[in-house]
């Protein structure tokens, strides 16, 4: 198991948002996290790269093992963890003062990657994010001139540039139109050949289309975790069935 949580509890100001979640995430596969609003799925995701502790009143108990090492262990630097576990957010967040090139290079600069290697990595990352052909002639133009879907793929390229082992995606397509959503989904399927992907989504069709495994969260508990095909055809818990058949959520 590449990434695993053991009895992971996350709180806001003492109130638990997820409770004792134990879950193993398969390498080079897409794991979807689904559930109704407020079920804790985003909080769960943010525990995997130590972003939750930056939230107001955010605390974490339990363990998150990345390649066998607890990322919350003593002596582990949260900044180093975030360089190994990349993240893409719901809304595209290109840095407005930077060009397309500099956006992708941002994480490299902070990692101290040599300048001469940078151009090559930027090109590779943009190509991985299926954006290279669209922006190769305006790399030094504003990132804000791109469409929403392009901006989101730029953010994916930016996250990939530092060569993370895991890619976390928090509803990466929910702010995009159907066509841009489709492109991001195709991209995810391509990327899983090289990356471990965990995606939070509100969109059940999306989860069933792209993911290999699915975890269903409800009221802060991990209700069920299984292969996506099995979960969507034959859920073992009544609450899962109720949710995926659209009886609530």
């Amino acid at each position, binding site marked *: 198991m590449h990434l695993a949580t053991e009895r992971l509890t996350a709180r806001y100001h003492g109130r638990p948002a997820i409770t004792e979640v134990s879950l193993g995430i398969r390498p080079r596969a897409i794991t979807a996290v689904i559930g109704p609003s407020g079920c804790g799925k985003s909080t769960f995701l943010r525990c995997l*790269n130590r*972003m939750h502790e*930056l939230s107001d009143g955010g605390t974490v108990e339990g363990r998150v093992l990345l390649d066998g090492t607890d990322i919350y262990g003593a002596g582990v630097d949260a*900044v*180093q963890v*975030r*360089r190994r576990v*990349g*993240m893409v*957010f719901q*809304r595209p*967040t290109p*840095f*407005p*003062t930077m*060009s397309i090139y500099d956006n992708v290079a*941002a*994480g490299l600069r*902070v*990692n101290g990657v040599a300048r001469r290697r940078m151009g090559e990595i930027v090109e590779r990352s943009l190509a991985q994010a299926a954006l290279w052909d669209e922006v190769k002639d305006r790399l*030094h*133009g*504003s990132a*804000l*001139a791109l469409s929403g879907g392009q901006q989101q793929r730029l*953010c994916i390229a*930016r*996250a990939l540039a*530092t060569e993370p082992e895991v890619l976390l995606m928090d509803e990466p397509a929910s702010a995009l139109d159907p066509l841009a959503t489709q492109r991001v989904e195709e991209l995810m399927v391509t990327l899983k050949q090289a990356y471990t992907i965990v995606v939070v989504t509100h969109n059940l069709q999306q989860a069933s289309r792209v993911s290999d495994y699915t975890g269903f969260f409800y009221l802060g508990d991990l209700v069920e975790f299984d292969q996506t095909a099995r979960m969507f055809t034959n859920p073992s818990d009544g609450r899962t069935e109720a949710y995926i058949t659209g009886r609530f959520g």
Partner: protein
Amino acid sequence: MTALVGMLSALAVLPLILIFGYLILKGASSLNLEFFLSNPVPAGQSGGGVAHAIVGSGIIVGLAALVGLPVGIGAGIFLAEYGSGRLGWTVRFVADVLNGTPSIIIGIFAWTWIVRPQGHFSAFAGAVALAVILIPLVARTTEEMVRLVPHSLREAALALGYPRWRTSLSIVVRTALAGIVTGGLVGVARVAGETAPLLFTTLGNLNFSTHVTEPMQALPLQIYVYATGPFPEWHRLAWAASLVLILLVFGLALVARRVAANRYGTR
């Protein structure tokens, strides 16, 4: 309703138009090379200029900006990024009180703490007084500008493995930079026109001087002296100096506007 609001807006800009128009009417004819390049001639004679006051204002305001802008901007960044605790509350409160303090009181303060112990008036004391006015002004506008940066940008940088200080500087402050510069320029323009704090500190000087440890002339002081003096020639120069001062402030405001328009701009 629209007509009423339109009338009120017109009323709001009317004073500026009147002031500006009147200053041009009264002062523009005196604006010539001699005005900018010469120093005053003895009272009663005609001609002369305010070169000493323009240079003096430049030095005093420049010194004030040199001290006030870094401290003010630094304090503003601190307030926005780390100012949620008791220390932040205190700094914010002190800045607000200072912002509301009449500038003449700041002048008296500078006189008490710098001029009196030193035993003489100096441009330096004036610069300190202006810096004291500038710091809270710039701190609060900087804080506002930094706070305007969306939280999502900060999170994106942190998730990329930016340490917190680098997130603050190269993402958050960098994004807010145009607004911060604008706030700084507006602050400098404001203190450039201050008269009261300079009365007790730099005093004024009828001769050209670039020694910051000595009394120095500044445009607002020159206007004060010439406008209240007995000679028509002085009044003429006062009008012209007023026009120069307001043009200076106008220019700074315009530059500030340009910088602000480039917000989120690209190279």
